[in-house]
């Protein structure tokens, strides 16, 4: 028991790790601030493109969504970070993370928006159009707001996943929270810094998880 505490909840080591982990937290938040809006915007574009008139565009979008949902995000990230340099494209870890997660998250957010757009009855768009709104105005002011409201729990839940996903950036040496924590772990041979980082994630995300869980318990309602 004592050994467990020393290995996982060593307060002395945790205190030493705090400055580095806080700096890592700053980078984690910065990555989130880039990746979440990128994914939300990309997803909306994907969902709208999935409703294009041209059949070719629709098939292409469905194909791309399936591809990016099938490839693990870590694979995509390592491909962008370690593969593209061979093609002469060398990106910073931050840029690699943004691009890889933009592709992955757009597919996931896109599927959620698609469900949302499907859930708004065609009558809404027709009524909006008949009042003289253009197709884009009807989309932006009538359909999308209702669509987003209908899938809000899924959007929030996916955003939790995106925040958790940013921890993968540690693999390409972006000094975010997990990377910083793992650095202290490798110096001290003690897991407490990673436990501390885990606790920070828990504090950040637990309220959101609770919220999502409350919303989800109305499954199929």
């Amino acid at each position, binding site marked *: 028991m004592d*050994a*467990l505490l020393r*290995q*996982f909840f060593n307060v002395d080591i945790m205190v030493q790790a705090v400055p580095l982990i806080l700096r890592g937290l700053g980078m984690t938040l910065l990555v989130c601030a880039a990746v979440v809006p990128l994914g939300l915007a990309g997803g909306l574009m994907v969902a709208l493109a999935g409703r294009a008139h041209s059949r070719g565009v629709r098939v292409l979008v469905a194909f791309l969504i*399936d*591809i990016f*949902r*099938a*490839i*693990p*995000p*870590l*694979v*995509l990230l*390592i*491909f962008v970070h*370690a*593969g*593209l340099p*061979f*093609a002469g494209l060398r990106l910073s870890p931050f840029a690699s993370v943004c691009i890889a997660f933009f592709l992955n998250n757009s597919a996931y957010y896109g599927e959620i928006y698609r469900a949302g757009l499907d859930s708004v009855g065609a009558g809404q768009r027709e009524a909006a159009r008949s009042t003289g709104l253009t197709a884009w105005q009807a989309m932006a002011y009538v359909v999308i707001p209702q669509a987003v409201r209908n899938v809000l729990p899924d959007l929030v839940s996916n955003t*939790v*996943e995106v925040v*958790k*996903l*940013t*921890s*993968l950036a*540690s*693999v390409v040496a972006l000094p975010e929270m*997990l990377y910083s924590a*793992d650095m202290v*772990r490798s110096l001290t*041979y*003690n*897991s407490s810094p*990673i*436990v501390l*980082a*885990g606790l920070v*994630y*828990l504090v*950040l*995300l*637990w309220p*959101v*998880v*609770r919220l999502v*869980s409350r919303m*989800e*318990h*109305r*499954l*199929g*309602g």
Partner: protein
Amino acid sequence: MDRATLFLETFFKPELIVRYLPDILSGMAVTIEIAVLVVVAGIALGLALALVRSLRSRFVNVPILVFVDVARAMPPLVLVLIVYFGLPNVGILLPSYAVLWLVLSLLLAAFAEEIFWAGILSVRQGQWEAARSTGLTYAQTLFHVILPQAVRLTVPPLTNRTIAITKNTALGTVIGVPEILNQATTAESFALNATPLMMGAIAYLVLFVPVVIAGRYLETRFAWRRA
């Protein structure tokens, strides 16, 4: 060299494809093996936890809730690193694939428990009352009346979650599990060429595109209809 040849030489170099195909295939075997074991263990444990929770005893519900919430709020890679680097120092030696299996199974169990529980809750109370009033015991009601209806509701969200968590087998590369990504990055560092990474990505597509498409089919087939 023109652009097309350069592209092919970088991502699809024939002799490298031939040289590293066996490695990638063995990585696929490892990925499939771990994924199957994770799905079986995770869904079984998740269902068991949801059934225990349906007894509505505060005594067991609080630990289940804490477990589920922690699992949902923690990045999988954090848990993998804690278990992999922490346990040996307290005298528990687990091989890296066992660590990966354990962590992913627990994560899937947590999400599956939430989904099954939401499914059980969404079966109308009248179903319980009607079943019990015909003389079925609590367990009979649960297994013959409630679960068959609840499970149908859970198929779409559970499929999506299961796909997401099995894709996390790629995290095994960080702790040296010889799965697809690990084989691909090792080969890449020997070959100094992106072809093995492309092969790895294609291997994931071969494995998971059918699953994603099947998931989409299940989603429409089992569209949420209130039981």
